[in-house]
């Protein structure tokens, strides 16, 4: 909630203005029944036509005045709430863009999505509501009490009974409703999750023909949801009728009492009618307040979820005096240990050195920590122990920009973004000319594909690259990295979906490029590593060997085993 008020403060002038208009609007509503009672008690009763006309036109003016206030208030409240929504969204997106990987691991993608859309929308609605009905309701409620007190104090005690009754009904409603509601929500989430899984796994389900099992699961969750919803609806059905009942009883009572009081002349007939209207107005106010509570709880939960993102502390800071320089590409690890969060180490005391222009191959079992080495070179994470030097300077001293500008990353899971091929490639280098684009895509063996597409570089890539094959995506990702002509090229198992011919073509193209890049190559295929200057063998988070192909075959058992298993030959 602090979050919400912080943002409101930034628009406080418009916000207070909106509240002012809102109060005027409420005042107009409150005045109406009283003026009406004047018409009846002073005009009709005494048979004075001019009073009827006078008060009648009062009513008319009040209505129009209320309308003007309502329109201005609506205009302001809309602007303020949507402006705030806009700002929170932007702040949150900025925050996410600045997230370190450690931060990212703390949120899963889907939550961030809902936070930036639904949660902000809920807050936005709440703020809008604040300036609309929420504050108007108490004004109406209090106003109606004041007006009744003015009209006839004798009837005021009805409120004294009515208010506690209504408060009790509403609080019981809340107390009973929330657990029910959240249980329904949980059941719904479960069903949705099941459905998502069903759709994602449809091929597997078809392959195993396990529809009966899936159907049973779905049926169970579906029936559970239906039963829970029905039960809570049944239980909740009692509250609206109770609320209406208590208000209606108050009306009956007022009528009953006025019958005596009118007889004694202590109350006018118009007052009675006005009173009934005030009670109804009061009911409206109560209803709205009840809804405000619902909205408030929801908005509070949302604002907490938003704050969680906005207040995430990013430990990964650029150094205060960042080094900006052109990197030659010498990489050195000395005694590097690393773990994700508090888990076990995924890297233990890894040391190696690659000279500028050399190729380092990294091979090892799945989960042995190969990709973590890359996450450290690119400084997506900082190591727990040891030093990582590029050109003799620790990575954390570089500015993010100069570090990443000099590294071309082709990740294991390559993401392409919605847009044209060209837009995706230009990530590598914004102002690349067509020759550079051609060269990069030629080297990555994707040139022919691009040329043969009717739209060429302007071919649209669907979300996540759905319209491309795995191999094409990988090759585009390689072209994108090559386009920036990096000092360090990182290939993380990035030709796994490319066939052998193409992979060989790519490799020789890389070798023939003018400037020699330092290449870090993670792969599962021994044959890809054979030319590497150095090969680092990782086994169970430790370095099991470091050397070239020939020397490792002799000295490193793990490497020999891998080699033999792949080629089926004795080395």
């Amino acid at each position, binding site marked *: 909630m602090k979050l919400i008020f912080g943002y409101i403060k930034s628009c406080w002038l418009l916000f207070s203005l909106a509240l002012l208009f809102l109060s005027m609007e409420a005042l107009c509503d409150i005045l109406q029944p009283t003026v009406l009672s004047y018409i009846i008690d002073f005009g009709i009763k005494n048979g004075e036509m001019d009073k*009827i006309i006078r008060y009648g036109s009062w009513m008319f003016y009040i209505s129009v005045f209320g309308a003007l206030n309502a329109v201005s208030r609506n205009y302001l409240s809309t602007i303020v709430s949507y402006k705030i929504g806009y700002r929170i969204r932007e702040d949150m997106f900025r925050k996410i863009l600045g997230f370190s990987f450690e931060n990212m691991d703390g949120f899963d993608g889907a939550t961030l999505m809902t936070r930036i859309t639904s949660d902000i929308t809920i807050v936005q609605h709440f703020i809008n509501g604040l300036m609309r009905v929420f504050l108007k309701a108490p004004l109406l409620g209090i106003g109606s009490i004041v007006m009744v007190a003015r009209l006839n104090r004798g009837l005021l005690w009805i409120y004294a009974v009515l208010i506690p009754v209504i408060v009790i009904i509403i609080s019981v409603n809340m107390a009973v409703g929330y657990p029910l509601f959240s249980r329904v929500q949980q059941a719904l989430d479960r069903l949705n999750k099941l459905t998502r899984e069903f759709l994602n796994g449809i091929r597997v389900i078809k392959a195993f023909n396990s529809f009966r099992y899936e159907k049973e699961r779905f049926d169970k969750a579906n029936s559970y949801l239906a039963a829970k919803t029905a039960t809570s609806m049944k239980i909740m059905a009692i509250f609206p009728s109770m609320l209406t009942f208590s208000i209606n009883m108050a009306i009956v009572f007022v009528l009953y009492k006025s019958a005596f009081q009118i007889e004694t002349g202590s109350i006018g007939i118009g007052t009675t009618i006005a009173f009934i209207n005030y009670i109804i107005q009061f009911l409206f106010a109560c209803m709205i307040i009840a809804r405000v509570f619902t909205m408030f709880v929801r908005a509070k939960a949302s604002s907490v979820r938003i704050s969680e993102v906005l207040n995430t502390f990013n430990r990964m800071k650029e150094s205060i005096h960042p080094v900006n320089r052109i990197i030659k590409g010498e990489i050195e690890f000395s005694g590097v240990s690393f773990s994700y969060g508090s888990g076990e180490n995924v890297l233990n005391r890894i040391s190696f050195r690659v000279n500028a222009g050399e190729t380092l191959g990294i091979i090892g079992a799945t989960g042995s920590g190969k990709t973590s080495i890359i996450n450290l070179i690119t400084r997506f994470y900082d190591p727990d122990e040891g030093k990582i030097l590029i050109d003799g300077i620790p990575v954390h001293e570089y500015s993010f920009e100069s570090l990443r500008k000099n590294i071309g990353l082709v990740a294991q899971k390559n993401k392409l973004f919605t847009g044209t091929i060209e837009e995706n490639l230009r990530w590598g280098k914004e102002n690349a000319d067509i020759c550079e684009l051609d060269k990069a895509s030629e080297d990555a063996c994707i040139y022919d594909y691009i040329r043969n597409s009717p739209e060429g570089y302007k071919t649209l890539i669907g979300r996540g690259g759905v319209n491309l094959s795995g191999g094409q995506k990988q090759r585009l990702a390689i072209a994108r990295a090559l386009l920036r002509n990096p000092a360090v090229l990182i290939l993380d198992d990035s030709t796994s979906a490319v066939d052998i011919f193409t992979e060989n073509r790519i490799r020789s193209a890389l070798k023939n490029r003018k400037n020699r890049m330092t290449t870090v190559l993670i792969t599962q295929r021994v044959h890809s590593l054979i030319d590497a200057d150095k090969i680092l063998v990782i086994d169970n988070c430790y370095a099991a060997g470091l050397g070239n192909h020939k020397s490792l075959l002799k000295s490193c058992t793990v490497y020999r085993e891998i080699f033999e298993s792949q080629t089926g030959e004795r080395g």
Partner: protein
Amino acid sequence: MSDFGKKLQPGNRGNDHGFGRMAKRFSNREKPRNIKETLSKLWNYYREEKKILIFLSVVIVLHVISTLFSPFLIGRVIDAVDMKKGMTSQVLRPLLFLLFCYISATVMIWLEGYLIAVPSQRIVKKIRMHLFDRVSRLPVRFFDTRSHGDLMSRFSNDIDNISTTITQTTTELISGFLTVSGSFVMMTVLSPLLTLGTLSVAPVVFLLTRFISRKTRSYYRDQQTALGSLNGLVEETVDGLSLLKAFGQEENLLGQFTTVNSKLYIAGRNAQFFTGLLMPMMNVLNNLSFAVIGLLGGFMVFSGYITVGVIASFINYSRQFVRPLNEIASTWNTLQSAVAGAERVFEIMNETEEIPSVKNRNIPDNAEGRVEFKNVSFSYIPGIPVLKDVSFHVEPGKKIALVGETGSGKTTVVNLLSRFYDDYNGDILLDGVLLQDYNRQSLGNSFGIVLQDSYLFTDTVFNNIAYGKPGASSDDVIEAAELSNAHSFISHLENGYETILTDGGTNLSQGEKQLITIARAVIAKPLILILDEATSSVDTRTEKKIQDAMLKLMSGRTSFIIAHRLSTIKDSDEIYVLENGEIAEKGNHEELMALKHKYYNMVRQQYEKFDIV
């Protein structure tokens, strides 16, 4: 004035539920296309709840009647009181009637909420189940062309939409309609002239609502479109954050975001402004009709046409008259979007199902696993053939390696064999019988498939493996895990076989996931084994162990393997080299090497440096 309580119900998953839903709903915010047909389909579901719904209608009618009489009775009481007769029977009788009306309204409101609960949820449950059932029977081709998000949104948002409509809109619309017409009748009976005066605001209400809804509709559509692209942008950003940072694209993305965010702001602001006008305007009109009643009514009492009690009644009637109008106006939109949602749901139900097997044969226990392709041609997108006139014949128990460049058609061969697609030309035979003649169940059980994307379910490791064989014992599961070398890493997991895999197995590495999918295929003990690049991202040491296990598993089974590794390829009985959707070469390793053509070149390129060719 007696049913203000409705909005309190927790079942109200109405508009303030947030954009998440609306975001996905934007595409169905449009007007439904074929209202009649959709409504008649919905009606079929309603009809099954006939008894309760008839009872409910009676309750609604009673509710409306008691609501209608109360203002009238208030007027009567006031008139009686006005004559200063004290607490006579003239006051008491209408007062007692009023009390009775209120009590009956209270009971009816409760009954309405109570009665609708079960049938409405039953209807929704049925629709959901039918949709699920239908989707299960749709061909894979259908899923190729639809985004999961869209399907997902039909399952959740659209059905949710229908659900809300059934529970609330239905009763609201009916009672609203009855209240409006009833109020009109009562008012006319009391005083036609004053009715005319009061209703003079009605056309204004009508015009205003129409103006606003027309204005807002296009703004809402803009808003949903903007929200959709904002969603997409955030999704991509979150998904690709590492790359985005690696390429320093933060500013670029922020720029894109600001553009979309501004669009969203403007559209949202405009939409909200006009929508926000509706309520206060209604309120103002209500006040105006008050003024009219006061002025005109006052004059009429003065001239002796009516009594004061009539004014009291009219004030209440005018409230009752305007409010349901307002409600009908707003529910009309909900109703429209619900019908649009229903239409989207039924649209799926109308999709052509997989062709059911006509002959419905079972695969006999002593099936051999002989596979034959006869002149098979296939294309995913019409006009772009992926397989061209492919024919081959595989003897039972043989191991076939499919090799070739990406896009040469390897995966398609196994896709057709698994009967993911039915619409190919030519014949595929299993043990001499057309694939289509087998029943799907039996066919599915006889194929063991390890797909490129290892897909795991949110469930325990145990259940994920047992998935291949319903009712598998723990011995079966452990045996399968051991055979596929998954046992050791599973035992190292915190809860062993009872470890619950999170979304698609994100807590496992790619290789570990594949080991589990392999175990899943192993446990099924299938007649025919299909391995689609299954081992490509398992590291080679593990792969060696898998290969051993696979060799055991493959013995006696017809197997198709899409693999890159020479050792796997060499071990197979026959190698099909695919090129542009055709089989370019066929034979075992030695034969193809001797041919010194495509296969030879491929192997040399890959392995010449090892001097082992």
